């Protein structure tokens, strides 16, 4: 399964995919430890689609985004390998200046905490249009006009008055709108939103999700939405990739993830979630996620898995077809059967 990427979209044409990961691996090296925060990620993202990345803390979701966009500070000893193919180019082998240009225009990211992702001592309007001034050749006056327009588009009331304000003057929901406005200025083709609503209240989350989907429908951009919340991705994404211990363990169309999950971890997640409608006893996944520095050769979920056999701990497992448009990294997906949530 090395050279030929398992296409996760129904169509097989590679041109349909805006981004393909082939064996993306991110390793952090300490003096005595090696931590594989992303291990051999294989994933294809269809142009114009919305892909949800779900997983718990430490599963490698944010690391994946940062490795794709090469957002690692030089102070961190990180080794990223594999191929990240974006529009026919391998991002990992692109020159730093070209990469910066892409990040300032068509490849954008919105971070989790809007309180810390904006510069506190810079007016919001200037931050929103920084990419355009650097890469779009906009004058200061034109940039300010553009900032007002963008802030208006993301629903900031009286943007012409607020464009010169500083982050401390805005609420979390408004700052996240500003961060989205900033990401939208370069007319992005691919937007990564890393837990964009996790720091926000539920009514504000609702506003931000509505905004992201509306912008996507208007511009046709591809959206990668990272979330720990299955419900958030359920109502926004076409496909879901589930991550565990630095790996993608399952990927399928959203409906199938919910109706016929084929990885025991996905099944466990679905059973752990309290529902709004009922008070039935939850079925938590026993144990806790593994220490990434101490992973064995086999399936990282095996110690917590109710379907596991002894060989699960020793046999390496890779994503393989579990249906026409469905991949799972499980040796015995048939054991799960139809046992959905």
């Amino acid at each position, binding site marked *: 399964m090395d050279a030929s990427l398992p296409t996760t979209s129904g169509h097989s044409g590679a041109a349909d995919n805006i981004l393909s990961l082939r064996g993306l691996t991110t390793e952090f090296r300490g003096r005595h430890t090696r931590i594989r925060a992303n291990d051999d990620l294989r994933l294809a993202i269809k142009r114009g689609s*919305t892909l949800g990345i779900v997983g*718990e*803390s430490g599963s490698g979701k944010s690391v994946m985004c940062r490795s794709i966009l090469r957002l690692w500070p030089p102070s961190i000893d990180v080794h990223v390998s594999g191929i990240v193919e974006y529009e026919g180019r391998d991002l990992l082998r692109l020159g730093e200046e070209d990469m910066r240009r892409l990040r300032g225009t068509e490849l954008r990211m919105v971070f989790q905490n809007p309180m810390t992702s904006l510069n506190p001592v810079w007016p919001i309007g200037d931050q929103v249009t920084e990419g355009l001034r650097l890469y779009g050749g906009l004058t200061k006056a034109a940039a300010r006009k553009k900032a007002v327009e963008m802030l208006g588009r993301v629903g900031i009331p009286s943007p012409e008055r607020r464009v010169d304000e500083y982050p401390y003057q805005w*609420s979390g*929901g*408004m700052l996240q709108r500003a961060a989205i406005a900033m990401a939208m200025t370069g007319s992005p083709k691919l937007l990564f939103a890393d837990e964009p609503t996790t720091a926000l*209240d*539920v*009514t*504000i*989350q*609702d*506003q931000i*999700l*509505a*905004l992201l*989907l509306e912008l996507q429908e208007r511009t046709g951009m591809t959206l990668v939405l990272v979330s*720990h*919340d*299955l*419900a*958030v991705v*359920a*109502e*926004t*994404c*076409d496909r879901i990739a589930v991550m565990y211990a630095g790996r993608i363990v399952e990927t399928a169309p*959203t*409906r199938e*993830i*919910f*109706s016929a999950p084929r990885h025991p971890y996905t099944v*466990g*997640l*679905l*059973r*752990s*979630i*309290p*529902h*709004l*409608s009922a*008070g039935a*006893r*939850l*079925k*938590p*996944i026993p144990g*806790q*996620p593994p220490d990434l520095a101490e992973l064995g050769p086999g399936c990282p979920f095996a110690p917590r898995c109710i379907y596991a056999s002894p060989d699960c701990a020793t046999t390496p497992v890779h994503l393989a077809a579990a249906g026409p448009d469905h991949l799972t990294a499980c040796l015995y997906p048939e054991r799960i059967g139809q046992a959905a*949530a």
Partner: protein
Amino acid sequence: MNARSGLGESLVEIEAVAVHFPEQRSWADVLTAAPRRVVRAVDGVDLTIYDGETLGLVGESGSGKTTLARTLVRIYEPTAGNIRLRGRQLASYPRLGESGLCRQIQMVFQDPYSSLNPRKSVSAALSEVLLFHGICAPAAAPEEVASLLREVGLPQSVADRLPRSLSGGQRQRVGLARALAVRPAFLVLDEPVAALDVSIQAQILNLLKDLKSHTGLGMLLVAHELSVVRHMSDRVAVMYLGRIVELAAAPAVFESPQHPYTQSLLKAVPRLIPERRHRAAVLKGDIPSPLNIPPGCRFHPRCPRAQSICREVDPPVVSPAPGHIAACHFPG
């Protein structure tokens, strides 16, 4: 605002409680004689919690739910109103001693990473509580610690470990064991699972449910996550800008909410239904600042149902069904 529903004796009675904080004044404020402003975090709450019940308190950030919870353990003192525990004023209880407040009410905090002393082992943290409050003799402490660990589902092997070597879920179990050590009558849980991952969250929620059925402890569960509150609570109170706007049995709040804020809150929660949403956001704008509470009904600037009366008159508390109350001019 006491909607009884055939529950036990009243355990905690909160009566017209307000908790206000004066705003920090800068030199510029003093020099320009700017008016002294007040954060009305809790602004007139009536609530009764009965023996053995779990009352869920939901609301967005800034609603005052954590302030109310902290006032119940006297981290804050109410600016106005009364809080009674078993009919006796909270302020009249001694803090310590067998009938002291610390033995009656205990709190579990949101962040298990910062609420434990990093230099105390689990057994040291628990025996300190046991010995300080004279729950057991020093010789009996190890046995009592062991039984507490069993009660919260921790292996005996964690007793000698420091918090840093425990996972978030384990730490939260230690926090719970510490609260249970004094055998309190009432437990205040402030966002007990908000810092935990879903698979771990489910373990803690199940543990809390078991404790509830074994011990008959009264609990106030503060949480922003509606599904967590639904899962755990007998009754649910919804807070907005320092007031309780709706209170009823959990199924009534979730299945037939009467207050437009509760309805919006429920609609805003993403469902586990794999279908792309095609709807606008349910509420516009942010929760107003508690420094500057809107006149009339405090929800009116965001309310889809607001009329002119809502902008001027504080809404009455109405009871659309037995045991169900809502503070709205146009409930339903």
